């Protein structure tokens, strides 16, 4: 069985964040929720400073701390390497979120209908839309996936359950690349079977210098970074966090 993984070439990335946008469109994530997130950070002391970019999907760790701590088995590891979240089983305790060193989990703090790109219940908007609320629910995201038939694509983004990057399971099971991979204009992100030695991702990992994020946490991530360098304690974020939901 294929065991998927991702390779991200930091030498190509220019921080355009098209992958974040593609992810939001594909997965219809609520406001403030970024399954794919691109760090824009600064390192060094003036005048020797450098701005770097680092796309951060879920690392789909082989020894995932979130899987370990989930009290009900809503977060689980699939045989194809994906780390999935079962929306029906999640109880909203948010232990996975504090256990994850990468900060990839996004909780659904409220019912998301009013906080997508546009608030359709806003009086100004409904004047134009005539009160119509377009269907947000993507049937692909509501389906059940894998041999275990569990709802893991994040459909509906139900209030009080945890979400995170799914490696676009709805596309992967359909033999398509995840949305971020397909959209990236510079082919920064590659996706494929890391168990197959002839796959593009395996070749890249074998032939180019690479690192994985926070490897000393023992998480054994399935996302490899080529070129660039791992952000350290001295790296500074260059933009403020957005806390609005």
């Amino acid at each position, binding site marked *: 069985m294929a065991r998927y993984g991702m390779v991200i070439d930091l030498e190509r990335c220019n921080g355009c964040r098209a992958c974040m946008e593609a992810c939001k469109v594909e997965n219809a994530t609520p406001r*403030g929720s*970024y399954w794919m*997130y691109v*760090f824009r*950070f600064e390192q060094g002391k003036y005048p020797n400073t450098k701005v770097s970019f680092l796309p*951060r999907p879920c690392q789909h760790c*082989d*020894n995932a*701390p979130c899987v*370990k*701590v*989930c*009290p*009900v*088995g*809503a977060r*689980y*590891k*699939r*045989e194809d390497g994906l780390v999935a979240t*079962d929306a029906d*089983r*999640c*109880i*909203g*305790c*948010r*232990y996975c*979120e*504090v*256990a*994850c*060193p*990468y*900060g*990839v989990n*996004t*909780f*659904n*703090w*409220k019912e998301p209908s009013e906080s997508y790109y546009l608030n359709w219940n806003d009086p100004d908007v409904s004047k134009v839309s005539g009160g119509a609320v377009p269907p947000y629910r993507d049937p692909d995201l509501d389906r059940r996936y*894998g041999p*275990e038939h*569990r709802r893991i694509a994040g459909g509906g983004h139900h*209030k*009080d*359950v945890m979400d995170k990057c799914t490696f676009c399971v709805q596309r992967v099971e359909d033999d398509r690349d995840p949305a971020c991979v397909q959209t990236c204009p510079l082919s920064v992100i590659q996706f494929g079977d890391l168990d197959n030695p002839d796959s593009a991702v395996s070749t890249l990992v074998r032939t180019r210098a690479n690192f994985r994020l*926070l490897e000393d*946490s023992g998480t054994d991530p399935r996302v490899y970074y080529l070129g660039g360098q791992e*952000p350290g*304690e001295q*790296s*500074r*974020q260059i*933009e*403020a*966090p*957005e*806390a609005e*939901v």
Partner: protein
Amino acid sequence: MALLAPPTNQLPYGVGRFSRRWMALIGGLFAVVVFGFIAYITQLRGGLAVTGMRNIGPMGGATWALYVTFIIFFVGLSFAGITVAALIRLARIDTMRPVARMAELLTVVSLIVAAMVVMADIGRPIQAIVNLFKYARPQSPFFGTFTLVISGYLFASAVYLYLDGRRDAAVCAKVPGRLQRFHRIWAAGYQDTPEERSRHHRVTGWLAIAIIPLLITAHSTLGFVFGLQVSRPGWHSALQAPAFVVLAGTSGIGMLLVIAAVMRRGLPSGDQLREEIFTWLSRALAILVLVYIYFVAVELLTTIYAGAERERAFTEAIITGQFAWIFWLSMAALLGTLVVLAVQRGRPGISLGWLITAGLLVQVAAIGKRFLVVVPSQTDGTLLPYGQGSYSPTWVEIAIILGLVALGTLLYTGFVHIFPIIEIPHDDDAVVRAPKRAKAAVRAPKRATPDAPGRDRTVTIISIAMVVVGFTLQIVSYLALAAPLGTSTTAADSDPRLPFAPVIFILGVVLVFLAAVVYELLPQRLARRRAVQA
């Protein structure tokens, strides 16, 4: 057969007397509870978005915050309760016996409140209850919190409180009044025969022995919820679990001191809570505060002197950053407790005001330190360059916490008014002081009666069988029936191997402690049935 001497025609310690002032207090507390409930409804409708909590990372928030702080706080309060009660029993500290029941009640009430805070924090409380019973995984540190703390510990404490109260319930049941029925049910036919008494002492002795390891495990488990996580600076520490236990003891003893002081002032014949009790409690409190300060110093030194870069930066953020005021406030409160206790000690007699101050100062420190364990590791402790986060609670969180504090107080004072909170002194406490002689005295006549030994053995065998089966169920369900331990590789690892395996585990815990009830209550049932047959 020593019959229970009916006391005066009035229930002791103000039980059954509902003064107007007390009703006003109840009314006030009830109003706060209602306010908290309204806040909870607001939260259920709007989702947790109405709280100050946000996602770690891109949102720069804390996803565990005030609620989790108070879950730890309330579970911590429960620690001292049953510990003190068990120690009084095991070490035979007779002077302390009047606070034993206060301690037991503190444990039961604070655990109930802690469970309610969990429900407030969790996104989907209904699914949580169902799914935990169905799927709870031993690998998650929450498994221990859920089974040991909430179910096992609460059940064990309730059993202890119940059995320990039977004799007083029997005394109260002799007094006619509205509460008579309640007391009669509680007493469950208790006659205070020498046999029953020795039986009871044997049971509580064993319960006390069983409860002490359970509560060390339970509080450590809560520490492990944090201590086992490498991802958050400030959490991954071997000192986490012991520090949780010690701080739990500190705040619990402090609360017990406050309660004892209030009872001494407020209860009729409250002066039975003699000075030695307060001396003992304040000495225990001082020792625990010193041990905790030592722990804090060790932790600070280790991380600042030799810690990894991130740990050091994080520790510096704790003592100089946005939450530094909480750290210094907590430290000041701990030192203040010591100062207040010293001042109190230097004065003639005891000053309840000073003792209450010390007990409350410790609560400030305990809440502050718990907040510092929970929140800054999320806002200031991300390992990737997310930037600094922030957290401040909203009115909803504060209202729910206040409401639950009021509910706890309500339950406590409510109980005090329907049941004697101080053990009614008995003239025949010889069993406690000289157990061997008393047991011999009990056994001698028993052998004389032809059917007594056989009956006794049946009950003993049943109880021991319950304990053995209980432990077996726990071990088997933990290791073989629940979801497997270790790194999981397939979806199947997320399901229990036998559906509802966690229920079997809890059943095991319950069975072990239910054995105590059976051991105490079954002999009478058997005797009664025999009497009916005769």
